[in-house]
């Protein structure tokens, strides 16, 4: 194998805010006025193994637009691209471990030639004490397609709920609110993923 050895990961540490959360680098509103789709607000808390809030975590999110199209050259399907939507967000938890962002609900995207994935938002969790970021996904509890989602089906059934955001009763402004907590460790630990990239020594 002529693969180059990868560069190791390290924690983002506690001092990232001035860089990663500067005015033009943080993104907790992913949609603009012209963006197509249903406005949603996602909110939650990040908790450690003692159930204590994590006040120095970063959530980065990545999603398709309302039509299920990613703004990326690898998504070469002939779907219209919403030019008013990038699909990327970067949010720090506050002193109480809470985070929130506003976006549009993503459309379904393909899994392979035959199957589709249920609408979901990819999330990377970084933080002090996390030597490598954690990958997870947010699904929506009002999506029937969750039951046949090929990625969710790889998750042990009793843990799938940790990936499903719960729709709240009241809208915040014009947005539907979903609740999604991230538990780093313990009984209700969120499911975290490893991707089969093939880059192993």
């Amino acid at each position: 194998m002529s693969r180059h050895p990868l560069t190791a990961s390290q924690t983002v540490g506690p001092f990232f805010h001035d860089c990663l959360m500067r005015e033009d680098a943080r993104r907790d509103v992913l949609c603009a006025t012209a963006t197509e789709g249903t406005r949603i607000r996602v909110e939650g808390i990040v908790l450690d193994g003692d159930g204590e809030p994590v006040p120095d975590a970063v959530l980065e999110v990545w999603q398709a637009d309302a039509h299920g199209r990613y703004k990326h050259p690898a998504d070469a399907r002939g779907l219209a691209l919403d030019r008013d939507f990038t699909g990327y967000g970067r949010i720090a938890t506050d002193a109480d471990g809470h985070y929130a962002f506003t976006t549009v609900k993503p459309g379904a995207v393909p899994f392979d030639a035959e199957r589709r994935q249920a609408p979901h938002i990819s999330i990377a969790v970084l933080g002090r004490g996390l030597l490598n970021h954690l990958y997870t996904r947010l699904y929506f509890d009002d999506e029937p397609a969750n039951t046949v989602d090929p990625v969710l089906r790889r998750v042990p059934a009793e843990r799938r709920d940790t990936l499903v955001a719960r729709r709240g009763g009241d809208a915040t402004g014009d947005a539907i609110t979903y609740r999604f907590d991230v538990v780093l460790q313990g009984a209700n630990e969120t499911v975290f993923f490893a991707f089969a990239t093939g880059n192993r020594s």
Partner: protein
Amino acid sequence: MITTIGEIVRGDAAVFPPYLYEAYRSTIKRAPHHALVEVPLTLSELTGPGPTLSAVTPEDADLTRNAGTGAEAIGQRIIVTGRVLDAKGTPVPHTLVEVWQANAAGRYVHRRDQWPGPLDPNFLGIGRCTTDATGAYRFLTIKPGAYPWKNHPNAWRPPHIHFSLFGNAWASRLVTQMYFAGDPLQPLDPIFNSAPEAGRASMIAEYAHDVTEPEWALGWRWDIVLDGPGATPFEDPREVGA
């Protein structure tokens, strides 16, 4: 030093640190206990924000002057440069590189850093650039100092620069730290030590006399290799859909 080292690792276990590395105490309550669920790369992981994040100015890459005070930061001026590659060795062009670091005295501007090292009014310790067509990045900065932390008695972080990179795909995201070759604090640092030997080697910049500019700044070279789906099939991602 005896420490509990967890078995849960994301990515190549010969390179990446485990989530639990007891000597770095903040991992103890934050490392997951459940095995990671391995999933194939789908369109969600093969895509990512990397190709669209590009809002930088040339001034962003000069940390010695980007505080905007009109004056220069104090410290040993250094040039940090290298290339960003994927696992096949293919350069990753036009990708965002963000950095943050302590000042020459080992102090961050961050309000949570309260140890009595002096602040430098002309140094913010933040920078960014995008790689060029050959995957090369370059920063002008000052060499960061070591600083104490409360992980264990007399704990000092070795001089380092934090790096954040996206690459082309969600699966290629990397946040890491660059260390300077020959520093005596590295073997004492549990964050550095958390990575296995090959991983530690991957984070060390070498002094590069060919990068050093006479009468001006010392050169350090550090290449970064990203995980992810391998060689990019894209000519110039930014031209697509732009």
